[in-house]
């Protein structure tokens, strides 16, 4: 069975633009805004959102985008093959008193976001934390929801979601493949998929 593409490049661009406007709307401007992406693809999306925000609101500070690695905070470390960590880079102003918008590619079990909230609380005390995701595929295992969603994508837990972004993968789309389609053409390392209940809330990390 082949993968079904649900978002093309233009769809992704439109979704990110809309999310950016929604972020500014809910924050009532760009004051004390920090956008943190969760590596790998969340970090790419965060950089794009940062660029769009700067285009909409010239008042936005230059240093608002960063990355937040959650590897060391995951609750599934002992269940899965070990992950290498990625750098955490915060804007120079830190996150104390800021409104932090976490950005990830796919929201699934919610466990990655749980880890991200723990990581954030070790780094400082934001005034508020919001969550932006490109795709919400459902099947939450924790009481977590996204504030800004690119596309709600009701899926079966047997299916896998593939997010490909130009900067990381050299191609750009979001597709859904059914569960028995174990090895689609474009590699399985970044699936948001079926392996294990705790599995890959976001498997995008290498």
């Amino acid at each position, binding site marked *: 069975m082949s993968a079904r593409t649900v978002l093309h490049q233009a769809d992704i661009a439109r979704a990110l633009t809309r999310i950016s406007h929604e972020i500014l709307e809910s924050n009532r401007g760009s004051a004390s805004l920090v956008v943190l992406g969760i590596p790998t693809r969340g970090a790419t999306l965060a950089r794009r959102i940062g660029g769009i925000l700067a285009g909409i609101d010239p008042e936005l500070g230059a240093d608002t985008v960063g990355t937040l690695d959650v590897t060391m905070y995951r609750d599934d*470390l*002992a269940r*899965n*093959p*070990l992950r*290498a*960590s990625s750098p*955490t880079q915060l804007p120079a102003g830190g996150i104390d008193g800021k409104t932090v918008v976490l950005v990830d590619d796919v929201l699934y079990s919610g466990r990655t976001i749980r880890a991200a909230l723990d990581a954030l609380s*070790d*780094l400082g005390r934001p005034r508020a934390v919001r969550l932006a995701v490109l795709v919400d595929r459902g099947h939450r295992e924790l009481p977590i929801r996204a504030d800004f969603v690119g596309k709600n994508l009701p899926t079966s837990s047997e299916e896998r979601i593939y997010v490909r972004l130009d900067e990381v993968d050299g191609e750009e789309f979001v597709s859904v493949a059914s569960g028995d389609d174990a090895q689609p053409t474009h590699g399985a390392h970044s699936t948001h998929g079926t392996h294990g209940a705790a599995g890959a809330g976001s498997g995008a990390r290498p």
Partner: protein
Amino acid sequence: MRHLLSTRDLSRDDAVRILDIAEDMADVATREVKKLPTLRGRTVVNLFFEDSTRTRISFEAAAKRLSADVINFSAKGSSVSKGESLKDTAQTLEAMGADGVVVRHPSSGAPQTLAQSGWIDAGIVNAGDGTHEHPTQALLDAFTIRRRLHGTAARGRDLDGVSVVIVGDILHSRVARSNVWLLTTLGASVTLVAPPTLFPVGMGTWPADVRYDLDAAIDEGRPDVVMMLRIQAERMRAAFFPNSREYARVWGLDDARTARLAPGSIVMHPGPMNRGLEISAAAADSSRSTVREQVANGVSVRMAVLYLLLAGGGEV
């Protein structure tokens, strides 16, 4: 990774991966909360049959920063002084539920024995065994060199083209052995300098050049890194050089030799230092010296090793 026993069987990719994770661990030390929850509920035993200050404290700090529980064991004042064997000690630790054991032992191969005997199921980290290896020291040395050379752009890089001179008691030095294997795996070229009496037999297979003249090694080799080793008086049961003054004059890094080093080159020492013997006080305290960085980096590297050994559920 199941155990870390030597640097000889580390591949380049393995080594770079450890160093990259250590970079992320180093960032933790700069934060307000210097702790990660990663090894919560795991127990690490520091099993030290030999005296040590910095290695034991470094492993203890590393394990605690990852939220593991740490039990320190030193042979002095333990049942070992009543004659308990390594096997019985290991089985005691197993019964207590140790997940990781950091071993330092005067006999070469003791960590390997623990890892392979089946006495204990824990991951074993070699923290120095006899005159065999001290892998975490070599990893922290490589980490320190990489950071000094590449700064914040160090992630993912090896040590290709770096020339390293290691000077001193090669015969007794597990640090030198671990460094020879690791640094050459990472692409560096290694030259060993010592009096002929302090070279071991059978070095023909080592991937390193051998010289007897420190001045020539400094002036002709123009090394990027000069690593001075401690004269290990406690292991010397014979006269390897006439006296310490002569050693300091011919093979010590004195002020004149330090002044002749290439610009940008660094001076390393694994500690503890014999100031005035293998390294002069001025060289040890100069801006070239990485001695204190090495100690700080040691914690980050050991955090990376403990993470790789104890956090995962299986091989990558």
